[in-house]
Structures are given as structure tokens and as C-alpha cells.
């Protein structure tokens, strides 16, 4: 028997085509540097239908605010930071904004913060950037991480404090690079954060994007992976824990255009408390040219208390039959009382038994993160989230 009793909840394994009229293809979704190309969302659009857009009005205003977050950086030797203009960023041929919030963030950021890891650098310590908010003014954040060919690097972005943060992050990786980007959202629960993370996987490169979302009132991280050449590998990992009042949303779009590339997505989330809300949407498009593609995506949600709601929508679109493999799995289940009984029948107290089961639920994805300090911090944070339940 699986941890997740396969009792479907809302949205479990729903192919979007069955529930509404979607774009004919994920590839046809509007994408532009021009804010005017996107209407202000109402919540009825496919890409906004789960999001509480009424709480996010300022994110869609086509105007600069001049506000910013506090930036603290830890740079290993050889890594540099600089600023470039938005025009220069566009000229790099970067992926375009996919929704209005991202287009606004890119248009009004006033400049792009750049982190450069030189070619063939082998970093032994992560690049660490801590972004802290102290007031609710809307901040347009614009970041570019560039990792040179054959370089090996880990970049950890941490988000804390109070902020309304609209973020555009571009990750460009050179041929054969080995890159891990971790984005940790531990905002104050008054905060709102909309993000577009574009990851361009270089030829034969291996890129991992990891989203850890624990704090924030509304957090929505859209991660898009594309491939600059054949042989690339993308891993998208995510862990989230939603409490009462939190809306945590993760959307992935893996666009397989180059042949012989791999992608593997694994997101796991827990929900506790009435009105706790999570959304996971995983779109994978295998274009006609992407022969030899191997892709798999998985989302699991563990509902710890009544009243929480998890939506999980995997979509797979395949335009060529010449692939290695393609699949997805999604399941949302309630906490399994039989597991609790088994552990308690061995003398283990209920709170500790619950902790063991939830830690176990996350263990497989946490182990794949591969950045020990992030793993330890995450497990401690999950313990605190569970302890919050006991105190409530």
C-alpha cells in the first residue's frame, strides 16, 4: 500500500483538456517583452485560473515603483556580480515573459542584476544571495545567472521578510555545465511573490532547479525549462508546505525542442489547516524535433487536516513518437491513519509518529536536493511547520 491512499481530491490527475478549453498547444500561449500584449488577468485565464488575482492587483500595473529588496551576497572566488540594462538582457536572446506580471517586472526593473560564473570554474561552495523585504511596496526584481561552459556551480536564492515581489529570473547555462539553482521562499505570511524562472539548459549540460516554498501569503513560481542544444538534462524539484491562509503555486513548463534531452520533475507538498491551498501544474511539450526525449514528472500532495485543497494538473503534449519515454504521475491523499496506528503500536507517541510519516513523505525529494545545508534547513523548517500544528 502506498503512503498515499489513492483517494482523488479536487483536480487529481485532471488533464486540462477535460475540464476546459485550453490553448490548442502549450506553445501557443502568449509570450512577449511588451506588457500591452497581456491583458490584466481576471482569474478566468488558463494560466491564472487557480491564482487569487484579486489580491495581486499591484503586480499587473504597468509602472515602475523604484522599490527594492535588501541584497546580501556570498560569492565564492571567481564569481562576479554586475548590472546590465534591460535592453542588453533582451539582446542576449533570453526567453520572453510568459504572463503580465513577468512582463511588468522585466519592463520596470530598471536594470538586471547579473551573477556570472566563469567557464570551467568548479565551485565548492554555493553562491548565496539573500533577498530581504521590509515593507509591502511592490518590488520588480530582475536577475540573470550565467554559468559558463563546463562550469560547476550551485546558486542559492533566499527570500525572507515582508514584500510584494515580482520576479524575473533567467538562468543561462553553457555547454556541459553542471548547475543547481535553489530558490527558497520563506517570506512572512503577509508577503506576495510572483516569479518567472527561465532555465536554459546548454548542450550536454545538467541543470537542476529546486523550489522550496514554506512562507508567504501568495507565492507563485513559474519555472520554464528549455534546451539550447541536444544532450541536456533538466531536473525540477520542489517542496512546499502550506498552512491556513497560504496559497502556494508552482507551475512548470518543460519545452523539449532539442533531441536527446531529459527532464525529470518531482514536487511534493503538505497542507495543514483550513484554507491551506496549493497548486501544481506541470506542462511538458515534446516538439517534433525532440526525438529521443526522456521525461517524467511527479507531484504528490499530503493533506494533513480537513479544509485544505490541493490542485495538481500534469499535462503532456507529444508531437513525435520517436521518444525514449514520457510519463507523469499525480496523487493527493490524506494522512494515512494505518501508518499512524502501526507506529503508535510500537510505543511511538502520536506527534512523533506524525513527524516520522511527514518527514518520510518528503525524504525522497529532499535527498535529491544534494545541497546539505539546504536539506538540513528544510527538514528543520518542516519540523517547525508540524510543531505549529501541535501548538494550534
Amino acid at each position, binding site marked *: *500500500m*502506498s*503512503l498515499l491512499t489513492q483517494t482523488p481530491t479536487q483536480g487529481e490527475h485532471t488533464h486540462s483538456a477535460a475540464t476546459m478549453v485550453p490553448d490548442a498547444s502549450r506553445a501557443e500561449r502568449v509570450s512577449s517583452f511588451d506588457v500591452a500584449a497581456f491583458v490584466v488577468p481576471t482569474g478566468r485565464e488558463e494560466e491564472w485560473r487557480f491564482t487569487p488575482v484579486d489580491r495581486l492587483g499591484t503586480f499587473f500595473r504597468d509602472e515602475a515603483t523604484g522599490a527594492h529588496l535588501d541584497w546580501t551576497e556570498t560569492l565564492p572566488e571567481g564569481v562576479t556580480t554586475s548590472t546590465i540594462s534591460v535592453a542588453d538582457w533582451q539582446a542576449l536572446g533570453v526567453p520572453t515573459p510568459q504572463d503580465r506580471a513577468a512582463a511588468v517586472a522585466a519592463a520596470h526593473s530598471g536594470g538586471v542584476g547579473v551573477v556570472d560564473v566563469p567557464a570551467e570554474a568548479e565551485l565548492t561552495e554555493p553562491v548565496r544571495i539573500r533577498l530581504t523585504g521590509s515593507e509591502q511596496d511592490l518590488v520588480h526584481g530582475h536577475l540573470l545567472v550565467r554559468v559558463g561552459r563546463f562550469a560547476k556551480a550551485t546558486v542559492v536564492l533566499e527570500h525572507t521578510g515582508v514584500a510584494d515581489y515580482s520576479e524575473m529570473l533567467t538562468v543561462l547555462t553553457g555547454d556541459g555545465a553542471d548547475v543547481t539553482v535553489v530558490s527558497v521562499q520563506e517570506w512572512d505570511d503577509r508577503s506576495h511573490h510572483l516569479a518567472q524562472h527561465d532555465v536554459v539548459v546548454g548542450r550536454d549540460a545538467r541543470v537542476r532547479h529546486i523550489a522550496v516554498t514554506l512562507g508567504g501569503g501568495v507565492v507563485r513560481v513559474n519555472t520554464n525549462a528549455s534546451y539550447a542544444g541536444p544532450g541536456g538534462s533538466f531536473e525540477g524539484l520542489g517542496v512546499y508546505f502550506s498552512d491556513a491562509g497560504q496559497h502556494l503555486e508552482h507551475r512548470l513548463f518543460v519545452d523539449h525542442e532539442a533531441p536527446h534531452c531529459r527532464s525529470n520533475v518531482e514536487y511534493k507538498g503538505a497542507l495543514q489547516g483550513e484554507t491551506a491551498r496549493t497548486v501544481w501544474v506541470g506542462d511538458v511539450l515534446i516538439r517534433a524535433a525532440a526525438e529521443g526525449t526522456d521525461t517524467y514528472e511527479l507531484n504528490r500532495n499530503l493533506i494533513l487536516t480537513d479544509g485544505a485543497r490541493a490542485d495538481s494538473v500534469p499535462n503532456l503534449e507529444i508531437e513525435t513518437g520517436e521518444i525514449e519515454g514520457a510519463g507523469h504521475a499525480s496523487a493527493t491523499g490524506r494522512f*494515512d*491513519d*494505518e*501508518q499512524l*496506528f*502501526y*507506529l*503508535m*503500536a*510500537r*510505543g*511511538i*507517541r*502520536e506527534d*512523533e*509518529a506524525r513527524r*516520522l*510519516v511527514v*518527514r*518520510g*513523505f*518528503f*525524504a*525522497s525529494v529532499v535527498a535529491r536536493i544534494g545541497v546539505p545545508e539546504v536539506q538540513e534547513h528544510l527538514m528543520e523548517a518542516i519540523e517547525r511547520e508540524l510543531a505549529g500544528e501541535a501548538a494550534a
Partner: protein
Amino acid sequence: MSTLEIKDLHVSVDTEEGAKEILRGVTLTINSGETHAIMGPNGSGKSTLAYSIAGHPKYTVTSGSVTLDGEDVLEMSVDERARAGLFLAMQYPVEVPGVTVSNFLRTAKTAVDGEAPKLRHWVKDVKDAMGNLRMDPAFAERNVNEGFSGGEKKRHEILQMELLKPKMAVLDETDSGLDVDALRVVSEGVNRVKEGTDVGVLLITHYTRILRYITPDHVHVFVDGRIAEQGGAELADRLEAEGYDRFLPAGAGA
């Protein structure tokens, strides 16, 4: 010296048609060092007795009592019963993904003893117990019951019994689904614990086969939620020869 005393126990479960009584007045006393076999046809309530003693929330005790050395077991939560010295080897052990056997065993031992076991002794105890049950050391790093074969699950249950050293152990159809080699290994494990700790054993089984390896002091035949007949080991031999037919109403299959 411990005594588990079950008196006139009535237990029901909720079904779609309302509460259904499964145990209809069970009375049984088990002392340290004794082995009682409970035998009976499917549906006679054997497993209900096991789960009721352990405190599974699905079962409601409507009357009667269960005491361990005079303490009211029915007042205790599931984990308190285990810490008081009761152990249930389950018929269908549950998978716990992401929790390793080694972590699980240490957590359970710490809970039952009230303090963490001394590391050096503990590692050796686990290794020896696993060796005795012919379990590969790599087993300790697997997730609890995940992907275990039927035999591995049952060995893992008996491993826990060896390490947790309960006062009273209820073995719920530990023999079912085992081939003869696994049955022998598991039975040897139970006998080792009996010799080493003076545990009282309530052995629930559908078949007489396991009683060739674990000798019962008392045999109770369970029919329709009650003990229908009691005797010594010789009663098991008679059941082996005759089956349960004489306890069943005419026309009902075993």
C-alpha cells in the same frame, strides 16, 4: 511475572448497516512464559481480538475488560499500551515510505524504554537479531515494509518483538503466506524471544502448521466471536485431523 486478563470482551465495528458485534464475550488469561494458540475459521473474530488488545480505533469495545497486571488496558492509548509491554505482530504490516527500518527500530526502542538505547550495544543487538532471522544487513536501510516480500514483512515483525522485549506479544497470523523455510526462521525467532524474556504469547493462526515449531501450552478454538473449546496441544492435533467442520453450523463452509 505478568498477567494479561481478558474478561467477557464484547467488540463491535461500524459497518454500512450499522454496528456489528464481532466478539461476543471472550475470556482468556495469559501469564508470562505461557503460549496460547487461538485457532479458528476465517471470520471468527481472531484478528479483531488482536486489534482490540492493541487499541485499533476501528474497533469499539462495548463491554468487558482487558487488564495487564491489573492496569486497565482499554483506558490506554495505542502507544501507551505498547509502552506498558504489549506487542502486536501484524498480519498486514503497513508501509511507511521514507522511514528506514533502522530509524524506525531505534525510535520505537527509545519510546518503549523511555530512553535512547546505548549506541554500541544497540547496533550489536540489531545486527545479531537480524542475523538470527537471516536478514541481510542492507535491510536496515530500506524503508519500513516498502517493497518487502511477505516473508520479509513477517521477519521484520519478529525482529521488532526481539528488540522491544514486550511482556505480552500477540502474533496475528504471523504464519500466513510463509513458505516452510520462512516459517521455520520466524518460529525460531519467536522461540528465542520466549526463552530469553519469558514473554507471554498469544498466537493467532488459521493453520496448525506453525504449532509444529512453536508448542502451545493452551489451545483455544475460536468460533463466531467466542471461545468454543479449549485444551492442550493435543487439541491442535485433533483440529489438524478433523478441521473446523464440527464447530460450524451444517452447510457453512470453513
